[in-house]
């Protein structure tokens, strides 16, 4: 980068506040002292003859003053470059958006939105097709009105029926153009539409977008934006937190002067040294159970730790997921920046003097089989003070918490009374007690709601699945949630359901915007904690069926309020994306009514952006989300989205040719004349196309299209008669068809019937024979298929029989049975396998239960199978719990 121009040197000092403001907004700790220091440095630099400074040198000079961590130093460069761009002449001349293009050498002139330039070819093709169709229809209409009714003297008839009259042979089939049966140009025009419609349907995303609730796994854009004043930090301000910064008494090897003097005097001048304790700030090591990047409970814990840091305490934070024996280093973790894993033993070796705070569930620390703390947790005992902060209220504690309290981890609820109890404990004790009863003060239920819904504890992953439960279960769930969260919390939950993903800043924002009857924001720590416990907030996603239910439960006023809040959020977020130096975007009035700008901005979002999600957009447009909009099964999505587009085009071309051929051939048919007395000796029938020709032709077209589909997507796979090996991931053709038998067989049989009918027709068969032969062909097709299916299924059946006899002997075959259920076997056999699992497995292990839960999220199972799987999994979990509790499984 070249040296700054002289006229801009003065801009440095003038625009310095912009840089500082940008850094402050990005979280840098910039205050008046930093400003003064920077100004002083610039002055010194000028005095030393380094003016105007080289940009790189300027950045190197400012960074040590403005940064206070390695992460800030790393990020400083980007902020500095952007600020500098705003000072250089090239960027001053650059108008328009271009937020994705921050090149300093950008050409002057309006910037095209990235990736959206050029002619829209599909629009052009669609326009041409409309024009051609209209032209053809117009021609047909003109012909219709211009041509006369046929008479025997009509030159048309005379030309095409030579030798008509007495004695002439039977009318021959030939091409005949008649005014009122001018089908072929219309058929051609309609057929031409097949190609783009077909293509657009499969690849253009119109119908799939309409049919599918667009799911996204992308983090919402707001995580990467600084929303400034729009979202305040939660600011957990419990008194217990303040008390956690009370000083500990640590042994001090130095002499206590006053105590020594006193003791010496008391001993008659005999020197009696007294060493004692000195107050010291406690240091904390936090291990946080984080189930997903948007785990709200983990974020809540991070907020708690942040409050401790603000009070000047030294803290370290590590995260774990499910297995707490290993932690992943977060920022400022042991060993410096990075994400190296540290075992508990390693942590204990380096941080045993710190207070250990574990944020999580007691269940993560216990072996499900033995009920004892997991192997490898003995290192915990090296911490003198170790506590488990659990989201469960004390009233909800059970055997697990009691087990842990027995010399391992002292449990406390994450709540204000819980933290207060923890602080009291720390103030009065130094050593970990052998046993600790649940603190009585922590038994209250904060947040004004009821108990946590027990149904959410049974198989939590079930509630994350996109497969909806029964209507009765859904009603029960909603009622339980309303009781748990109370009215205010429920309102907050409903607002959160609108946004496609559950994101911490958005949740806090919505809690802040929504108010209770007294006008206070719904956002408070207790209510947030209640929400954060819910499984959807732990995984950052709510399934569509639940979102629909919650949105439906809103009244009109509530919908408007939520819509308004989200509009504000969108506007703020998109405004924050605009690069510096383009105030015209920031200054535009923003509202959904002024949706031209907003629509343009949303259009720039990537395809997978949560802002393009169907439910969200429908809600924001003021419409009720369409209930039939639901996720298509994976196989259907694969069918319509992942197809090879050239084979799709080829099959569309086939359909077109088929249309032309059939429509042209069936264009001619013998029909009685309308006015036989006017035609004299002419044959009683003339070759004139008849009405049935057109529908037959279209049926043939449809069946050809479907045949092409089947051939394109299934025909390429080989026909397999044996069940695939357990390790094989590719089921054969028969397995694929049997899973969705009738949607595939139906068109196949229809195609075969119609194809046979047409072939017989071409061969000149009589009407009755055509029907019989077509039916026969369809039956033969069905017969062949079922024979093949039986052969393939026979293999799976014998496999299942083998597993049954193995399970009778021992439970070691359970993994094979689970693999069978997971594999490509037909669903009815899978259901048999599930029943077998239920009958044979008396003491299910955690791994088996986890596998069953994972299977529930699979989209390759039929609904019936999934429901059975769900019920069986619930029962097995109950058995598992009984085993843990020491009872016999029923």
């Amino acid at each position: 980068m070249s040296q700054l121009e002289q006229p801009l040197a003065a801009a440095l000092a003038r625009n310095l506040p912009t840089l500082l403001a940008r850094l402050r907004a990005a979280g840098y700790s910039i205050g008046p002292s930093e400003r003064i220091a920077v100004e002083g440095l610039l002055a010194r630099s000028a005095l030393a003859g380094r003016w105007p400074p080289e940009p790189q040198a300027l950045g190197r000079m400012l960074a040590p003053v403005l940064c206070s961590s390695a992460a800030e130093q790393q990020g400083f460069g980007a902020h500095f470059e952007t600020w500098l761009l705003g000072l250089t002449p090239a960027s001053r001349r650059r108008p328009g958006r271009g937020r994705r293009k921050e090149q300093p050498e950008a050409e002057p002139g309006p910037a095209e939105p990235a990736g959206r330039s050029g002619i829209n070819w599909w629009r052009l093709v669609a326009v041409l097709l409309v024009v051609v169709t209209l032209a053809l229809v117009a021609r047909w209409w003109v012909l219709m009105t211009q041509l006369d009714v046929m008479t025997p003297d009509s030159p048309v008839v005379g030309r095409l029926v030579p030798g008509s009259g007495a004695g002439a042979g039977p009318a021959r089939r030939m091409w005949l153009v008649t005014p009122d049966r001018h089908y072929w140009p219309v058929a051609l025009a309609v057929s031409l539409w097949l190609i783009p419609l077909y293509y657009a349907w499969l690849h253009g995303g119109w119908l799939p977008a309409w049919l599918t609730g667009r799911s996204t796994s992308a983090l919402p854009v707001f995580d990467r934006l600084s929303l400034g004043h729009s979202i305040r930090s939660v600011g957990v301000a419990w008194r217990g937190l303040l008390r956690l910064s009370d000083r500990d008494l640590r042994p001090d090897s130095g002499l206590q002067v006053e105590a020594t003097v006193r003791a010496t005097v008391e001993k008659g001048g005999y020197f009696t040294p007294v060493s004692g304790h000195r107050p010291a700030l406690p240091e904390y090591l936090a291990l946080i159970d984080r189930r997903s990047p948007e785990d709200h409970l983990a974020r809540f814990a991070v907020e708690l730790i942040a409050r401790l840091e603000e009070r000047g305490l030294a803290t370290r934070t590590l995260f774990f997921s499910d297995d707490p024996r290993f932690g992943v280093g977060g920022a400022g973790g042991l060993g410096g920046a990075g994400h190296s894993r540290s075992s508990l033993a390693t942590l204990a070796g380096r941080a045993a003097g710190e207070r250990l705070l574990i944020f999580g569930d007691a269940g993560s620390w216990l072996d499900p089989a033995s009920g004892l703390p997991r192997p490898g947790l003995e290192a915990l005992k090296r911490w003198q003070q170790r506590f488990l902060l659990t989201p469960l209220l004390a009233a909800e504690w059970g055997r697990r918490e009691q087990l842990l309290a027995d010399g391992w981890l002292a449990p406390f609820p994450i709540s204000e009374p819980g933290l207060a109890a923890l602080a009291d404990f720390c103030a009065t004790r130094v050593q970990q007690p052998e046993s600790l009863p649940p603190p009585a003060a922590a038994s209250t239920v904060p947040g004004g709601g009821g108990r946590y819904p027990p149904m959410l504890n049974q198989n939590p992953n079930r509630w994350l699945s996109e497969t909806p439960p029964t209507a009765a279960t859904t009603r029960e769930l909603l009622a339980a949630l309303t009781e748990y969260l109370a009215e205010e919390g429920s309102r907050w939950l409903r607002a959160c359901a609108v946004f496609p993903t559950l994101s911490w800043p958005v949740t806090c924002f919505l809690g802040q915007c929504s108010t209770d009857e007294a006008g206070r924001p719904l956002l408070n720590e207790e209510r947030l904690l209640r929400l954060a416990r819910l499984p959807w907030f732990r995984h950052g996603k709510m399934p569509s069926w639940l979102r629909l239910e919650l949105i439906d439960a809103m009244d009109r006023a509530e919908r408007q309020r939520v819509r308004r809040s989200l509009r504000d959020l969108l506007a703020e977020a998109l405004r924050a994306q605009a690069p510096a130096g383009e105030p015209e975007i920031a200054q535009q009035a923003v509202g959904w009514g002024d949706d031209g700008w907003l629509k343009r901005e949303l259009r720039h979002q990537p395809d997978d952006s949560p802002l393009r999600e169907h439910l969200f957009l429908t809600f924001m447009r003021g419409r009720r989300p369409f209930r039939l909009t639901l996720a298509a099964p994976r196989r259907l999505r694969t069918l319509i989205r992942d197809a090879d587009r050239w084979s799709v085009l080829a099959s569309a071309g086939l359909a077109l040719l088929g249309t032309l051929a059939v429509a042209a051939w069936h264009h001619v048919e013998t029909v009685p004349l309308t006015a036989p007395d006017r035609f004299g000796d002419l044959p009683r029938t003339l070759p004139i196309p008849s009405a049935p020709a057109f529908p037959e032709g279209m049926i043939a077209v449809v069946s050809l299209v479907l045949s092409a589909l089947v051939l394109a997507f299934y025909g390429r796979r080989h026909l397999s008669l044996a069940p695939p090996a357990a390790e094989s991931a590719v089921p054969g053709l028969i397995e694929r068809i049997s899973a969705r038998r009738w949607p595939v067989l139906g068109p196949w049989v229809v195609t075969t019937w119609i194809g046979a009918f047409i072939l017989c027709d071409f061969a000149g068969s009589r009407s009755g024979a055509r029907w019989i032969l077509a039916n026969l062909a369809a039956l033969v097709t069905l017969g062949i298929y079922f024979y093949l299916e039986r052969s393939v299924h026979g293999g799976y059946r014998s496999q299942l029989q083998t597993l049954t006899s193995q399970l009778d002997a021992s439970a070691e075959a359970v993994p094979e049975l689970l693999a069978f259920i997971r594999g490509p076997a037909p669903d009815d056999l899978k259901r048999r396998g599930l029943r077998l699992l239920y009958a044979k497995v008396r003491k299910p292990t955690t791994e088996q239960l986890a596998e069953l839960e994972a299977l529930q999220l699979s989209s390759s199972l039929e609904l019936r199978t999934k429901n059975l799987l769900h019920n069986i999994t619930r029962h097995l979990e109950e058995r598992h719990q009984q085993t843990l509790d020491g009872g016999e499984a029923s």
Partner: protein
Amino acid sequence: MSWSIYQGDPAQRPSGKPLPAPVGKGLDNPAGYVADDGLREAVNVALHLGRPLLLTGPPGSGKTQLAASLAWELGCEPQLKFETKSTSVARDLFYTYDTVGRFHAAQTRKIEARETDFLSFNALGLAIALTRRRSEIEGLLPPGFPASAEPLGRGFDINWSPRRSVVLIDEIDKAPRDFPNDLLNEIERYYFRIPELGNRTLRADPSLPPIVIITSNSEKNLPAPFLRRCVFYDIPFPQGPRLEEIVRQRIAELGDGAEPLLSSALELFALVRRDSAAGQPPGTAELLDWLTVLTRRRIPTDRSLRQVDPKLLESTLSTLLKNPADGERGRQLLKSYLQP
């Protein structure tokens, strides 16, 4: 000089031969320190602003050596070093008061004992004291000062001229949280009080503030008020040409003509760093140690490592790989590196 000093043979009788001097001192020579552009600028910023410079970075990136280099270049030797411990308190940075000795003196009725007899200045206290003339602070000086003060020693002028000193506070993150919290005013204004002497204050000459270098391994975060009072720089691990320059400065045998050995050694070093399993890859210090061992083993510098006996190379790996988890992986890596 033979490489094998120790034979490990029970039949071997003591030879009585003199042992060679270790090479460690040479590697710490401040004259050979190479600072990157960012570090150089940060030091200059700290000097202009008169603020402490807080350095972080991976182990072996040269945080501690910077202070010695700075003291050497600015003519402020010797550097005054404070090694932070987990039991350090803020007072320890400035002075130590022998309370037991004081009581003992009172017990044995040593009337001639003065309060300052039990006082000894530590790094920053010493640096502050040295900014004043002896006459200004005579009443605060312990007996025998400055000869009695490490590291000044007997050679230090008893009537020194006021001067700036370089103070190194090493590994501050080891200390308890109270340590940096209790230093806020002191490092901002360079003064300290001595309660044992009636709360007397010793303040640095404002025109000669000590040059304070603080290092941290980032094992704990430091309080924000402390960070605001410091100039900060994170030393990145040296790469490519800079690393080569550091090696050439430190190890004389790897000067001109040693490109084949040096480039192949750096290549292998980069592979080992990338592949390190234990989360603590070897640093510059380990690299320098390893290269020193290679030169001491008389490996020709005009040859690549691929032309060296693999067994010999393997025997030197222990200087590079300190973690048992890395040992076997390192051998595998060496083997694959040496294959053509």
